[in-house]
């Protein structure tokens, strides 16, 4: 299973839609301070069902919606779609390709889709959890957080190991 495509529109600094194509192997993302690199990592966490806003540096739910700039008005919705190659059936779904979409509106309403079928946030979270990308999983290491793997208390560290077991 691997990532194929990430489509981001209205999420944080992505006022204009961007599309990232991923291949197997190593994809590097570079650019100046504040240009949006970590926002791409945040959008990945968010579309995979992140429910703790602090893990994507937010405090209110609408922090993830483009809030405007000098020349642009705020947008009314954030929309992220992640497309995965599932030919090895790692995800427990009968599709060779799986598209997961998460949307949130300024009103507070949210939408969740798996291959265009409406689902709940919970369904998205369980989908990824079953592939080993759960809460404590090491699939996303945020900026400044690599050292935290060591500073975690021995007891907390244990829960990470238990999850791996």
């Amino acid at each position, binding site marked *: 299973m691997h990532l194929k495509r990430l489509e981001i529109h209205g999420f944080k600094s*992505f006022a204009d839609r961007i599309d990232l194509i991923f291949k197997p192997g190593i994809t*590097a993302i570079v650019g100046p301070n504040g240009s949006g690199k970590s926002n791409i990592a945040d959008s990945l966490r968010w579309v995979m069902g992140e429910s703790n806003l602090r893990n994507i540096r937010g405090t209110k739910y609408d922090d993830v919606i483009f809030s405007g*700039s000098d020349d642009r008005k705020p947008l009314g919705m954030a929309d992220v779609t992640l497309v995965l190659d599932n030919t090895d059936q790692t995800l427990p779904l009968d599709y060779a390709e799986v598209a997961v979409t998460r949307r949130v509106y300024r009103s507070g309403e949210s939408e969740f889709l798996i291959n265009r079928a409406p689902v709940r946030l919970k369904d998205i979270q369980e989908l990824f959890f079953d*592939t080993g990308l759960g809460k404590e999983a090491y699939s996303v290491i945020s900026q400044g957080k690599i050292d935290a793997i060591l500073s975690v208390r021995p007891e907390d560290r244990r829960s990470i190991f238990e999850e791996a077991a």
Partner: protein
Amino acid sequence: IKKRFIVTFEQIRKEFIDLFEQLFSGGKADLQLADPDLPLESGIEILAQPPGKRLQNLSLLSGGERAMTAIALLFAILRVKPSPFCILDEIDATLDETNVQRFTELLKIFSKELQFIVITHRRGTMEVADVLYGVTMEEKGITKLISLELKKQAS
């Protein structure tokens, strides 16, 4: 349950010891149960001894040494419980040039089995990428994406 935890713990421990030695070109490390008689409740201690140095508390290691030790542990977990993909945001920030090289060698090996998306400022890490994206904000506040050509030399 207890058996499965101990099996997994031992696997991660073995990989961690091996990966630490690779990343540090020597030295030794270990993972230990704080209380071996109570494996299901005991905390897990990390021991790390860079080459030529004495074993001391993890807190005394340098910023770069701590990052390399954390990378060894992260990759040990990835080897035992593989994730299909892994997103790394500037984990090479505190590494000197030599350590960036060692880190990227490991990244290349692991990238045969899992997909990596790495955010980086470091040339050494960019050089092992198969695909390179540039992120800019020409229009202030708006992120724009550019696909960058990699001048890959024959490897």
